[in-house]
């Protein structure tokens, strides 16, 4: 106790996290011949950045293929919940081996 400063037993103001640590997908051995899906929130020039990445990946990994962000819809905006909920099914149907998502800006 410190003078007129009172004495308090103060509680933790947060609450338990509902999310548990999830394992990430196994990484690939190579991108050669693999299918990479592009997922975009349709802001900050992601369309251009994805095009540059395609160029760079094709130069280094023969046979790498891409599923355009146009196939998945906008992951940020009025339809984001529906778009994100549909992603697992769409990724499976396109045979995606890997996903690159952007733009966190």
């Amino acid at each position, binding site marked *: 106790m410190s003078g007129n400063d009172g004495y308090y037993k103060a509680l933790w103001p947060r*609450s338990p996290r509902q999310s548990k640590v999830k394992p990430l997908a196994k990484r690939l*051995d190579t991108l050669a011949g693999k299918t990479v899906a592009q997922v975009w929130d349709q802001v900050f020039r992601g369309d*251009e950045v994805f095009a540059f990445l395609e160029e760079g990946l094709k130069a280094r990994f023969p046979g790498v293929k891409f599923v355009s962000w146009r196939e998945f819809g*906008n992951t940020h905006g009025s339809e984001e919940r529906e778009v994100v909920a549909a992603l697992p099914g769409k990724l499976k149907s396109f045979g995606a081996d890997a996903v*690159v998502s952007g733009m966190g*800006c």
Partner: protein
Amino acid sequence: MVCEGFLPLAKAASVGLGMPNLPVARVIGHPGVQSKEQLRKNALEVTLQQVIDNLLKPPQAVKGDSEPGPRDVVVKGGFDEVNDYFYRNELSDGLPIVPPTVEKVERFLRFTDRDPDESLGSLLPDSRAATIWSIAVNGVMAGCRPEYMPVLVALIEAMADHGYGVEHSGNTPGGETLIVVNGPIIRQLGFNYTQGVMRDGFMPNTAIGRFWRLYLRNVAGFLPHKNDKATFGNTWRVVVAENEDVARKIGWPTTSADFGFGPEDSTVMISRHTGGNHISSVSGATAADLMPYICDALVRQYSWQIMFTVGQGMGTLRPQLLLSPIIAETIAGSGWSKADLRRHLFEHARLPAHQFERILRDWTQKPTWNLKEEHEAGRIPEVFHVSDDPNRMVPLVWKPEDILITVTGDLARNSIYIFAHNGVLGFPTAKRIVLPKRWEELLSRK
């Protein structure tokens, strides 16, 4: 892919999502201020290799972190010691908090019939349970009185409603939530609904406004420099209560009635706004006299936010106006209903189509900006493309009902306030305030 200024946010958000080792590839600087050549160079020289590494190299192993339990005492000591601890551990907003003790929390819990462990939902980005207990704890900290508890619960129900979009509360524009209170609770708790309605100094308006921001920090997880990435930010807003006497007198539905509630219901309505402006000395003896200034002022509050009209938000822009009582009375005195006012604002608060498109296309580089193309694809209403004339006037919203109007403020002054809405990233959401069965008795004993 994450811009380098957003890497701390990505790290914080990954923890809340249960993927603390989610790999991110760095985007140099911000694409918004780079030439095509710079963007290409940065993408190929930096981002590309990180994308490759992230897809091919095993991510780092992680283990779950341990935290206190919800009823754990985290610090014992005097007022200053408690406050030092809460500030050091990012559990307060920088102002002194009321130490949340079990005794104080239990006083709050008497004002709800709900189980303290009940969760109203999981709040992103931290994915924490919005428990009744945590509402009481943060209510104590904010300086609320125990009898405010039903309002606090209704607010967190609204925060947890997916339609509101709390997960976006740390976005760049740093918008703050406007809380509008309606119903008998206004008088029961003594909310200010007249002069200075948005000014601190009235305990329920002020303390409940502070509670909202504390809960966003402590439970949803919006901490500046982490999950809260507001470029500039705003301070939390004092709660606004409507002047229902005036609304009733002029025969206009209240804000809560606009959301389908009855006059016996006490309610909260939340919506998030990036800013706003006081429009002073709105002058004229009739509605027609007042409208040109009000319409012009409404258009002036909106710039990039029209991306929530056409683009990212598609029809989710909801401008909110506060009308001082004598302005509402003057408009109603011309025989106008609230619906008439909305219709007029929809038809006259407009901007040229070429300006609308220029803001989205040239100034903010949004991918959706072509009104003709969007209309022909059936994605926006015809009102945005009645002709190909670039000087045609287009509205700010899709329909008159999208404009929200509340009567409040100084009884003797002819002013309005217009908020700039953040669209789907803080969409208007209203909830009924559920009172405990022994409400009257508890109130009389407080």
